[in-house]
């Protein structure tokens, strides 16, 4: 039997392997669960809650929760979509996300999620926080304005690059990614070849000298919405907001 079990997702029975998370099991079955902090090469973190689904009516992070035999999961109900939409909108207003000028536009997972959820204007007021930019590193740039605190870079530095260039500092609204050292990124052993910029879902951690190199029409989400490689939903990619 090899640890196989069955769960139900939106009324559909799905085979899963014991030990998989809900997100992984869904993905294997061609069901897309939106996510931001989760990344296939990194350990589970469970901070952004974009992957929220309802398990037996309770809100649960699909990227963290292991499957159990007979689990009944809501992934595509109005209620779940509304929770996710609200979370995505809150991420937008908490930072300073000006998609129309951002070099990550068209390749940004947050922007792509907004398109997928049909968000044109957040319902909440923008907070316009004042956040600095850490540009002192010759090959890397950290623009806190666009950071969503998913922690992918923190984990990538430790787990993939074998360093500890980045960590979290502060609490609540003041929480931020911080380089390990007083001189910011420039004071760490991070280099442009590290994976920390590659895993950033937004335009916060960037490799210098690569901006806008991909023309319109050839960017990751120009033709296919985010998750389209998993569940191939209908709908077209859209122009920048």
């Amino acid at each position, binding site marked *: 039997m090899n640890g196989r079990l069955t769960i139900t997702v939106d009324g559909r029975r799905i085979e899963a392997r014991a030990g998989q998370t809900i997100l992984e099991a869904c993905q294997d079955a061609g069901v897309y669960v939106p996510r931001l902090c989760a990344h296939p090469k990194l350990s589970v973190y469970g901070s952004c809650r974009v992957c929220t689904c309802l398990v037996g009516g309770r809100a649960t992070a699909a990227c963290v929760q292991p499957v159990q035999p007979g689990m009944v999961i809501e992934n595509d109900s109005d209620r779940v979509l509304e929770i996710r939409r609200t979370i995505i909108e809150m991420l937008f207003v908490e930072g300073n996300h000006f998609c*129309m*000028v951002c*070099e990550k536009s068209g390749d940004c997972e947050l922007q792509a999620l907004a398109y997928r959820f049909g968000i044109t204007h957040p319902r909440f007021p923008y907070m316009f926080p004042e956040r600095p*930019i850490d*540009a*002192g590193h010759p090959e890397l*740039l950290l623009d806190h304005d666009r950071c969503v605190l998913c922690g992918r870079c923190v984990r990538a530095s430790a787990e993939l690059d074998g360093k500890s260039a980045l960590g979290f500092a502060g609490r609540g609204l003041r929480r931020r990614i911080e380089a390990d050292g007083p001189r910011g990124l420039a004071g760490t052993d991070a280099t442009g070849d590290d994976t920390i910029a590659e895993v950033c879902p937004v335009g916060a951690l960037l490799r*210098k*000298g690569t*901006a*806008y*190199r*991909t*023309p*319109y*029409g050839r960017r990751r989400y120009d033709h296919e919405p985010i998750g389209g490689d998993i569940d191939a939903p209908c709908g077209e990619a859209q*122009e*920048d907001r």
Partner: protein
Amino acid sequence: MTESSRRIVIEPVTRVEGHGKVTILLDERHRVREARLHIVEFRGFERFVQGRPYWEVPVLVQRLCGICPVSHHLAASKAMDLIAGVERLTPTAEKIRRLMHMGQIFQSHALHFFHLASPDLLFGFDADPAVRNVLGVAQKHPELARQGVLMRKYGQEVIRATGGKRVHAIVAVPGGVNKSLSAAERDALLADVERMTDWAEAAVGVARDYTLDNLEQIADFGSFTSSHLGLVRADGALELYDGLLRAVDETGQVIFDRLENDRYAEVLAEEVRSWSYMKFPFIRSLGPERGWYRVGPLARLNVCERITTPRAEAARRAFFAALGDPPCQVTMAYHWARMIEVLHAVEAIHELLLDPDITGDELLRSGTRREEAVGVIEAPRGTLFHHYRVDENDQVTMANLIVSTTSNNEPMNRAVRQVAEQHLSGRDRITEGLLNHVEVAIRAYDPCLSCATHALGQMPLAVELRDADGRLLDRRTRG
């Protein structure tokens, strides 16, 4: 303003972006003392870019002005090429940028001429505004109106082919471009280029006939003598993308010639006046009183010695044969000059499309980072300066822009003043005729006011007449 002077305010209905308002100051005897065109400008940008990484600027700056984003994109990119240490782009990159720029010149000039200016020219500027608009043109001259729409669309297609989008296209990156044309994109543009060239030449004819048929009436309309400034090639020919600075004075004498772009501050200074956010640039050697100058299509024809494309060069010769040796000072001749540039732009587009480099794949070069650079381009409305300093962290520490409408600020004030003198002299009422003529005089310069592109090509005007104590005496609105 003195105690006893009177103030007449002509105020366009406020729009979201930059908008204009005209104040005419009268003296004690109700003579026009001064005219001021107020333009809410975008000075905020120069602060807004502080601290941003330099490669973002050509993209950010497109949002500065909704009317000529391509020109700002390219002027900033030229500066940022140098910041990235790249003096010469690859042939493909340079030609793709030129192609995009020519598309912008073509579509912007076509829009201005057919949509905004042609009603004044075809119906006369005292005609009823209910007829003197683009719908009136469409009814009376349907073929011309149709050509105007399709020419604009063609220019937009050129921009789309180079930059991927019609609006806020991004093609230029520091050191080059991110794409060239595919053979299919090139062929689609080539299919229509000859028809566009013929229509552009016909438009030159419309502007020429109008100018010559009405020369007596328009020779003095909003006119005055002035210096002129623009880019030229090293051999003195008209150059819109990458040239050297030349200025001539009111007699045609050269003031400075073939000056490298990064030396602009040696020859130009900017004066601040208390009543306007806009700066008033002037030529240093002539001083703030006499040093103001004009830019744009007429100025460019006045500073260049020839045009490199044959049909536009023939049109240029006809222009000066009819109006006398350069510099031409007839404000309304801007329209004719603008159409000569439309013809040049489409001829240049044709040449570029036939050039094998346009589909090449060598797109980028790199170099050693520099701290400071200037990018200058001839935007549709005139010379556009972008000047930046960037620190060792790649963050912008200083930005200074001189946009073409800023350079034409003083000339527009002079034009309005001259028109107001003719209409007001001694009266303190704003007539329909004054409104019409102020509108037409400003429009000759194609200023980048959003009101100048208002629906139906009318500038919505609200006119207020106030006495020295600020009491409202008269009010007129339109639009």
